[in-house]
């Protein structure tokens, strides 16, 4: 079952550091408890967004890949 997401940020076609910037901006818009889905195809995006989430002390719910596209779910915990 696909987890529920409150917002999606499309970073397809964007390269470092834009996916990080966009993800941060969207996370700022979310309320605590809401979930953000990030789609990216930049090969650097997965590790970068993992690092971002760690430093922002938010929760990385899941990371999945379909071809070159990575789908990252982040829960805003605070």
């Amino acid at each position, binding site marked *: 079952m696909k987890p529920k997401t409150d917002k999606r940020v499309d970073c397809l076609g964007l390269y470092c550091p834009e996916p990080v910037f966009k993800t*941060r901006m969207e996370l700022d818009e979310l309320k605590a408890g809401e979930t953000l889905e990030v789609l990216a195809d930049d090969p650097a995006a997965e590790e970068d967004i993992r690092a971002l989430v760690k430093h922002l002390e938010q929760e990385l719910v899941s990371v999945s890949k379909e071809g070159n596209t990575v789908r990252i779910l982040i829960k805003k915990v605070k």
Partner: protein
Amino acid sequence: MSAKKKILYVQTSGVDRPERAYAPFILATTAAMMNIDATIYFLIKGITLVKKGEAEKIKMGSFPSLKDVMNQAIKAGVKLVVCEQSCSLLGIPRGEFVQEANIVGAATLNDLALSADAVLCF
């Protein structure tokens, strides 16, 4: 992660090395996005990048102009500081720098380096 981490970027390359100009701004902006306190210290020729009107002239490949990248950093909360002695060395008066860049002394650089969790030089 209780206390906010700090990274100090030391920029010594100037307008004559545009390929070395983007990295500190992009890294510092990314640091700010990660809730890391980011400061760029412009030293020696590095100060020419924050001289008014210079960043507008730098644009490489598919990158935006250096001015756009600098503005993005400022908006993200990156602090820009300029070495006073480097201004004297290169004969650039204090008022010639972008408004957001503060002129500071040698002791400040040493203090920033010691209080940072990491220092990166370009």
